[in-house]
Structures are given as structure tokens and as C-alpha cells.
């Protein structure tokens, strides 16, 4: 290609001579005319690109800077904007690639079939719902069970109808998925289970949240912790001045409907000098919190103290010399999503010696997720404890010397 494109010297020469032959007149005329007629019309339709660059297609650094100064930062990478500015902008599904269009035909046909199936399944569900429970052999429970399984099938069909759609995939990858729709919830859950959930499960089992605080948990809700704008991974060490204010949680559920949950922040590593063991202490406890796939954000500082917060936030602190404290955050779902009675519950809970298991059994709660962060003594802990009115910042704990067993002594009497 290159050699054929390269202009020969002769051609170049002739071109140059052409350009030299009529230098001034043509240019002058063109400048004159264009200014009067065409350019103005164009400007009337659309202002010049250089005056008013489009953040989608701008790729000259100078114009980018100009846009950024104007408060409209350019969208996407420069490569993408450059390609977009030159592309004919054909919609994705109309791109005339043969195999792609054939594939689309197959998928369109499949989606129509799925839609038909959804219609029939819906009609079936309606029929069963209106039927008299006496018509079933098992009565009402059997009917409910059957309805539940049919609903699940309907949900599956809805996912199948949309899962082959490239635009759905694109929207999900762009983060524009609507969590009210089953397909996006399904995709989000699959993505969560692929990696982040594995890490979460590893952290809560490796750091023994699971047997120490809750008996067992199969996480079905994604938990993200943030202190202000600072996101905290599960199991990270958090400086005590950062964790002085309560954290914000993102509790992303992936199944339909609202959930009524209780959030407990429990520290199972409070050293107890008298018994030479560790106690647990509740740093935060709030009930009757409603979460849904679309409203996952829970700010612990903004829950209402009159109807939700059982125990307000106590800043996590570790005394000097004590091993790190695990601040385990446990999400518990209420049975049948019914709120618990606030006043009696508030009277009963105690901060020190709090055991989550008895709280769970008293209020019929089931753990649906757990996470944790850790804290240890640092420079700011003393100030934090003082501000919170806690004592013990001036005490340093020392490990008790363990007397070695006789046969493990360095210098047993038999050596002498």
C-alpha cells in the first residue's frame, strides 16, 4: 500500500506548480464568498465545533482543557472520542456484519419464544392463585408452595429472556442496570459471587467471626463499609480517629423485595483481666432497618434514635498492649420481615457482655451477611477514648508470663 500511495516527484512538482500558479485570487475569493454565504448558514444551524466542542467527540487536548474549565469534562478515553468523531454512528444492532445479524435473528426468535412462555406461565400463576385451596390435596400450604415454585420459574424465564441481549450486557457493565429488573439483579449477583463474596467469606472464616460471633452465615447480601469517603475492605485495620464516627454501609441485596434487618457491630476481643479471657461488647445495634436492591445505603449515624437505634455508636478502641480487636458487623434478617418491638428490646440490651446468639434467638433473627474491620492501639486512640469518656487509656496491658512446662524449661534441675 505504502509504495503505491507515495506520490512521485513528478506529480508533486506539478501539484506545487499548480498551487503557485494561482495563489492569491482563488484564496481571496473563497474567503470572501464563504464568509458571506455558506459559513453563516452552517453557523446558524449549529455553532462551530471549535466554539462549542462536544464532550463526546472532542479529542484535541486544547479543546479538552477548555471543556474541563467550562465544567463539562470530556467523556471516555481520548482514543474512544477520536474514533467516535470519525465513525458513521450506526446503531449497534444495525451494524451490517452478516454473522452478527444472523446471530441476532436467532436471539430475537428465542426471546419471542421466552416472552410467550412468560405469558403462559403468568396465566398459570393467576389460575392457581384464584383456585380454591381445597382443590389441592395438601390444602393451603401446598398451594403456597406451588405458587412459590411457579414464581421462581417465572423469574427464571424473565432472566432467560434478557440474558442474551448485548445491550443489557453493555448497560450492566456501564453500571446503568436497573436493580428492579430480575436480569440486572441476576448479573450483579453473579458478578458478586465470582470474586467479592469469596474474599468476604475467606475473611470472616479466617478471622473466626463465624464461630466467635455468629454460629454460621451464608452471605446473601453484599456488605461494603465506608467511613466518610474512605472505603474499607473487609478485615482492614482502621485507625481509631477514622472510626470515631459511625460508618456507612452499602447492603446490596440481590433478591426481590424489601428486607427488614438488624445491624450489629460486635467486638468479641475485649480483654477481661479478672477472668484472663476475652469478653464481647456491642458497639452498635440498630433494628427495623429496611433495605432493598434499589436502596442499599444505610448510614449508621442517620438512623432514627427513637425507633431504630438500640445502642448508639461507641468508638472502637483497643487498649495499649491488647491484641487487635475484630469489629464484626453482622446483618440479621427479621423473621417474616416484621419489625421488632423497640422499647422492650432497648430495655433489655446491654453493651458489655453482649452475646449476639441470645439476641438472635430472642428476636428470631437469622444472619444473612457478615463483615468486619479491625482496630488496634495507635497514636489517636487515647484522644478518641478521652472524647468518648472512656477510661483505661493510661493502662498498658502486658502479656502474662506463662510458666513453661517442666520438660520444656531451659535449665531444668536435672542439668545442674
Amino acid at each position, binding site marked *: 500500500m505504502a509504495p503505491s500511495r507515495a506520490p512521485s516527484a513528478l506529480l508533486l512538482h506539478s501539484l506545487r506548480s499548480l498551487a503557485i500558479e494561482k495563489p492569491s485570487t482563488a484564496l481571496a475569493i473563497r474567503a470572501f464568498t464563504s464568509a458571506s454565504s455558506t459559513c453563516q448558514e452552517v453557523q446558524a444551524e449549529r455553532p462551530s465545533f471549535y466554539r462549542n466542542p462536544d464532550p463526546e467527540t472532542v479529542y484535541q487536548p486544547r479543546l479538552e482543557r477548555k471543556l474541563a474549565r467550562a465544567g463539562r469534562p470530556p467523556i471516555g478515553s481520548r482514543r474512544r472520542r477520536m474514533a467516535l468523531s470519525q465513525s458513521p454512528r450506526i446503531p449497534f444492532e*444495525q451494524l451490517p456484519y452478516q454473522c452478527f445479524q444472523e446471530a441476532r435473528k436467532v436471539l430475537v426468535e428465542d*426471546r419471542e419464544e421466552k416472552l410467550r412462555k412468560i405469558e403462559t406461565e403468568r396465566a398459570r400463576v393467576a389460575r392457581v392463585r384464584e383456585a380454591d385451596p381445597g382443590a389441592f390435596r395438601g390444602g393451603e400450604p401446598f398451594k403456597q408452595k406451588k405458587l412459590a415454585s411457579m414464581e421462581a420459574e417465572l423469574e427464571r424465564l424473565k432472566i432467560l429472556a434478557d440474558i442474551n441481549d448485548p*445491550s443489557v450486557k453493555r448497560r450492566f457493565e456501564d453500571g446503568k442496570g436497573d436493580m428492579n429488573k430480575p436480569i440486572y439483579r441476576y448479573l450483579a449477583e453473579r458478578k458478586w459471587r465470582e470474586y467479592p463474596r469469596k474474599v468476604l467469606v475467606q475473611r470472616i472464616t479466617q478471622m473466626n467471626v463465624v464461630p466467635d460471633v455468629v454460629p454460621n452465615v451464608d452471605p446473601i447480601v453484599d456488605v461494603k463499609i465506608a467511613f466518610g469517603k474512605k472505603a474499607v475492605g473487609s478485615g482492614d485495620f482502621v485507625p481509631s480517629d477514622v472510626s470515631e464516627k459511625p460508618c456507612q454501609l452499602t447492603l446490596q441485596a440481590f433478591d426481590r*423485595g424489601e428486607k427488614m434487618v438488624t445491624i450489629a457491630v460486635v467486638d468479641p476481643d475485649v480483654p477481661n483481666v479478672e477472668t484472663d479471657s476475652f469478653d464481647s461488647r456491642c458497639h452498635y445495634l440498630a433494628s427495623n432497618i429496611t433495605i432493598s436492591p434499589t436502596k442499599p445505603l444505610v448510614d449508621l449515624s442517620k438512623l432514627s434514635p427513637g425507633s431504630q437505634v438500640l445502642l448508639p455508636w461507641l468508638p472502637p478502641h483497643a487498649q495499649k498492649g491488647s491484641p487487635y480487636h475484630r469489629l464484626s458487623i453482622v446483618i440479621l434478617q427479621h423473621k417474616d420481615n416484621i419489625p421488632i418491638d423497640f422499647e422492650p428490646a432497648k430495655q433489655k440490651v446491654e453493651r458489655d457482655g453482649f452475646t449476639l446468639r441470645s439476641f438472635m434467638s430472642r428476636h428470631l433473627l437469622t444472619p444473612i451477611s457478615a463483615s468486619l474491620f479491625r482496630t488496634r492501639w495507635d497514636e489517636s486512640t487515647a484522644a478518641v477514648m478521652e472524647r468518648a469518656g472512656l477510661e483505661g487509656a493510661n493502662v498498658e496491658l502486658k502479656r502474662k508470663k506463662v510458666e513453661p512446662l517442666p520438660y520444656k524449661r531451659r535449665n531444668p534441675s536435672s542439668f545442674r
Partner: protein
Amino acid sequence: MAESHLSLRLARTWRSFVKPSICNRCLQTRRTLASQASAPQGQRDAELEEASSLGGAPDAGSGSPVRDFDPLKVPRSRKRQLVPSRYQFRSPKYYRGPLHPHQPPPPSDPASREFVPGPFSTPRLEQTYHNIIAPDFMTMCYQHTPPGFRAPQKGARLRPWIGDSPYFRNRPLRGPRGGDVLRLLRKPITFRNIPMIERVTVHSFVKGALSGGSGYIHVAGMALQAITNHRVMTHEARTNEANWGIIKGKTVSMTVDLKGEDMYHFLGKLINVVLPRIKDWNGVRATTGDNSGNLTFGLDPESVATFPEIETNYDAYPGKMIPGLHITIHTTATCDKDARLLLQQVGIPFYGKVVD
């Protein structure tokens, strides 16, 4: 010490007597509200994606830019290249476990290192299998059972140890009768378990490589690669064997595992081109097999040279270095007789004694 423990336990039980473990009001509210819990499910038409790109056929007829679309026109008309992209995903070279943040994409993704394009053809043998061989096999092996018939229960193949000996307690179950190999069970053939060819292993022991240098290995590898369309896997000797001149650690053999499209192409060539041209060949010995449906037979170098890929290019190979092959055909049959029947249908002749 013991006293304190006792007192603690007493206190705990006492507390559980005094205050019930489940608070009463919670239970009451639950009973009253439980009936209302099943909320009515609303209309869910909005639950599907409205802006689906699979909604219907695109109106490509009117749109002239679509018709005139030339994917190469735009890049060719560019005066300068696009600026390079800042970030591109690279699949990791090695899998570092499920918790590593750099995870490889699935093999169907073209960015994956395991991505293999294709299949590019539908081999004739595969079509024949699905259209003719499988129905015929089912018909030949059909065993009628009247409606309501139940086969008599057989005893467990692994028997417990019965006796008075104290060593029989918790002992692993006794092996099957007549040997210590637990053979696969053969179930009656129905439309669900018709045997099919699963994979083919082509194996070649290169004897010349023991004394004649690496040329033998290379020629054999090239021949196998030409025949099977796959890179070979070489194997080293695991032990010294003075009688056969085998030295530990020396490359002596190579295998290729074939599946899917390549397997069917290989079998097609083997059955239709190579096997019919072997002179004075009776067929495969009917006693071959490993009792679980995998049959093996061998080819000598002269017949390997009649594979079309080698025959057309015979001058490129040193004639004495062309290897012989062992071909193992793995089928999903659970016994040799079914596998043999399948291979007869495919076109491999058998001879000799039949042992089942």
C-alpha cells in the same frame, strides 16, 4: 473451681426459667402478622428490559448509512492513527487461585489465553453418528420391558464384613466377588445412554529416539501434528529399563488427545482412507479393550504413511523415521462389547476370538 462452674450453670438455667428465651410480644405480633406476610405480587411487565436490542428486526432497509457502511473506509481515511488506548486487560499467564484479584476471563472470551476459535466444520462422521448410528444402536440393543416391570434387586456389590471378629467393626466394605476390581455397571440401553465416541488418544512410542538422537522425536512429532492437527505432548521415561534400552528421563513417546471436531476428522481419515489400504489386514483384534469401553489398536509405520497429509508430502519425511501409532478410542460405553458394536458401526473391522 468446680463449685463456681456449677453455680454459673445453675444461674444460667435459672435465667432461662425466669425470662423466656424468645420475647413474648415478638411472638404475638408474628402470629398476627404472619398471615399478611405474603404480599400480593404486582404487574411485572416492567420487569423485562424495555430497551432491549432484541425487540424485533432492525429497520435496516430505509437507513442508507447502514447499507453503505464500509467498516474499512473510516480507518483508511484517517490521516493519523488513533491514539493508543491507555488500559488494556491482560489475562494472567498463570492461574493464581480464586482469591487473587487478577482473574482470567472465561475461555470463551477472546481475551483469554485458552480461547480457541471454531468449530469451523461439521464432520461427516459426527453427522452420521447422530443421524444413523445412534438410532440404529438403540434399535439393535433394545430390550423390551413390559409396563410395570421391575428388575429384581441385586445385592450390594461391596459386602459388609459379617462375623464375630472384633476387627470387623468399622472396617471398609469387602471388595467384589472374584477380584478386587469394581467394574462399571452396564445399564440397559435407552435413548439416554447411547454410547458415543468421547475422545481419541493417539500415542506413539519412538524406539529410534533411544539410540538415534532427537531426530526421531522431531519427525514423529511433526508426523503426528500433521495427522491430528494438534501439538503433541512428549513423555519421558519414568524408570530405567535395561532390557529395552530405556533411560530414565529421556523422551521416548508422545501423545495427542483429540476431542470434538478434530477427533471426528481424524477418525474419518483413519476409517475411510487409511484402514482400507492396509494390505493383508484382518482388522482389530476383538479381544481389545480395558473392560470399560475404551478400545486400542495399533498402526505400523507403513500405514501411518498412507494418511493423506503424509502421503501427499511424503518426500518431506525421512521414510525410516515415520512412527507407528497406538490409537485408543474412548467411548462412553461402560463395557467393551458395546464399544465394539459402536466401532463396527463406525467402520472399524474386528477379527478373532470374542470374549465378553
